[in-house]
């Protein structure tokens, strides 16, 4: 593995925290939920320095959980994440400041009772990136960097709009001088006219500060715009990974193709109503995922093998990988021709 960020065989399993009483009750045959959810399932991935990796998928596919594991917020059940060969976590504790996160909801992610300047200064002071006496000018410089008036450091979160709060959250993450930025749906809770402002800011900052970033979003057009590579997740597994133009242009996995097909596109050139390519059925419960390929019950191309055997991730090129039996078969036939 040679990436800047290496995600090695990471799984995240959430099980019910049973009390002793519940365990006994379950043994005696009471209806206690004992199953666990594999939110992320054996994900191996490497991200190159300076790259922006987009993580897409429907809700419950594990994209946010994977983001949190990379960010060192959640200790993975198995596997490990390293940044520049240094572990992100040791014994369940985050041991690096090189990765920081911008969360979805800037109304929930800022302490309402703390002046925003103090919120931004807290981390850098604790990690000696600045001193208490210099904190004010340090924070002010980051405020300017994200397009906020530096005099606003004395204000409280409720005095800001959603877009401004997201700028504060970005300043807080960047004030830690990270190498890696995890953006978990950073524009999903913002108004449409504000989204473009924040996307532009993130594009500019990741370029100027040479950040490596992971951009999580359910909005495919946003991911397509900001990412170099994209990973498509389904029920905790990465089903396809590759450069944005390739994955969006020629999706190899039937799920990727169907997901892109079901996104409403802006209809400009026709008064005719467009046709949607809808995916049949719904995402199965992660408590009891189907056997074999998780997508096979909804997949129009599924064969018997898909129902019994989990497809192995095939590396097509350096940057591209697909986990699909159908694609494997096509690839094999293509070679034999």
């Amino acid at each position: 593995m040679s990436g800047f960020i290496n995600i090695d065989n990471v799984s995240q399993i959430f099980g019910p925290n049973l009390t002793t009483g519940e365990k006994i009750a379950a043994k005696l045959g009471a209806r206690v939920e004992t199953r666990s959810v594999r939110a992320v399932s054996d994900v191996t991935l490497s991200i190159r320095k300076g790259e922006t990796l987009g993580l897409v998928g429907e809700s419950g596919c594990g994209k946010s959980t994977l983001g949190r594991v990379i960010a060192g917020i959640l200790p993975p059940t198995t596997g490990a994440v390293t940044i520049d060969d240094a572990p992100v976590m040791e014994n369940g504790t985050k041991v690096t400041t090189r990765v920081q996160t911008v969360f979805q909801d800037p109304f929930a992610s800022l302490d309402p009772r703390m002046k925003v300047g103090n919120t931004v200064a807290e981390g850098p002071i604790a990690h000696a990136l600045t001193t208490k006496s210099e904190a004010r000018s340090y924070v002010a410089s980051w405020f300017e960097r994200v397009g906020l008036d530096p005099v606003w450091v004395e204000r409280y979160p409720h005095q800001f709009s959603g877009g401004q709060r997201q700028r504060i959250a970005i300043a807080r993450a960047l004030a830690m001088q990270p190498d890696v930025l995890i953006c978990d749906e950073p524009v999903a809770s913002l108004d449409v006219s504000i989204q473009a402002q924040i996307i532009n800011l993130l594009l500019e900052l990741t370029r100027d500060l040479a950040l490596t970033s992971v951009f999580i979003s359910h909005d495919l057009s946003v991911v397509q715009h900001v990412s170099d590579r994209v990973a498509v997740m389904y029920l905790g597994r990465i089903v396809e990974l590759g450069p944005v133009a390739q994955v969006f242009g020629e999706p190899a996995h039937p799920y990727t193709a169907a997901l892109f097909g079901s996104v409403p596109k802006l209809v400009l050139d026709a008064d005719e109503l467009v046709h949607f390519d809808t995916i049949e059925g719904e995402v199965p419960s992660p408590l009891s995922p189907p056997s074999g390929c998780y997508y096979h019950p909804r997949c129009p191309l599924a064969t018997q093998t898909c129902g019994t055997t989990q497809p192995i991730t095939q590396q097509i090129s350096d940057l591209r990988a697909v986990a699909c039996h159908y694609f494997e078969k096509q690839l094999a036939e293509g070679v034999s021709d």
Partner: protein
Amino acid sequence: MSEIVLSVKNLTTHFFTRAGVVKAVDGVSFDLARGEIMGLVGESGSGKTVTGFSLLGLVDAPGRIVEGSVKLNGTELTTMSDAALRSRRGREISMIFQDPIATLNPMLTIGQQMKLAIDAHERVSNRAAKARATQLLTQVGIPSAAARLRAYPHEFSGGMRQRVAIAIALLHRPAVIVADEPTTALDVSIQAQILFQMRDLARETGTAMIWISHDLAVVSSLASKLAVMYAGRIVEQGPTATLLRDPRHPYTAGLIASLPAMAKPGTPLTQIRGTTPSLLSLPPGCAFAPRCDRATDRCRTEPQITVQDSRGWRCFHPVGQNTEVCP
């Protein structure tokens, strides 16, 4: 000209709060024909939801409709008594809300809730009610509908719950359905299924729909005409494709240009500067002027609606009007 089922004229809804008068809806007018789907687009606080609520007479104190008229099949709704309005709500005009978890009663089975909704306006036997409920659930794409009538809302997924809410809205074959961001909380693959079905339902049943959304792409594939709201006003309306291809109001143009799909990947997006104004302290004249690149002194007075063919806009300096429009 097809038959107009809903005619809204100068609808004005204000909220009288301690901080001042909030002009949530300020002079909104539009017509809706049978089977037509209109997209009502705007950002949060633009008044699109309050417009929807006003149509059904659902605005609570301190808010109230202060002016204007809402005519449903020729009958005025704004002056109607609560009881009279209640007898029409759900039967002639109904609403689908954003959050299907909050709309369904967790204590009752889907079958019981659908029976209650039928009983509100008609006397039918249990057997007939069940048959109608089953038929509608099937129509909105719920598998083994008859068995699912005995299930509780928590036994359904988010997408299925929204389908149930849609089926309930359709129970009395209303003339108009107001759908307030019904697919916003859903996954894209489920959203596509529901949009597809709604379009077919509108065509089959002749029900007209107002589809409230912040997502231009969603409404562009669904609605035949669009109304764009900003700060309580409709700033532009017209046929969907025309309006999106050739917007007149700078706000509409800005919204379209800011979509990632409009830019080359990795390049900066066209952005609208500033933030949405507070409805308590709107700038005089055109509310968009402080954010607008085309604004002049003239914009401090209120622009009136310019009507051209089947479209209209509220702007002194419309985009692209001097350029030739190709036929």
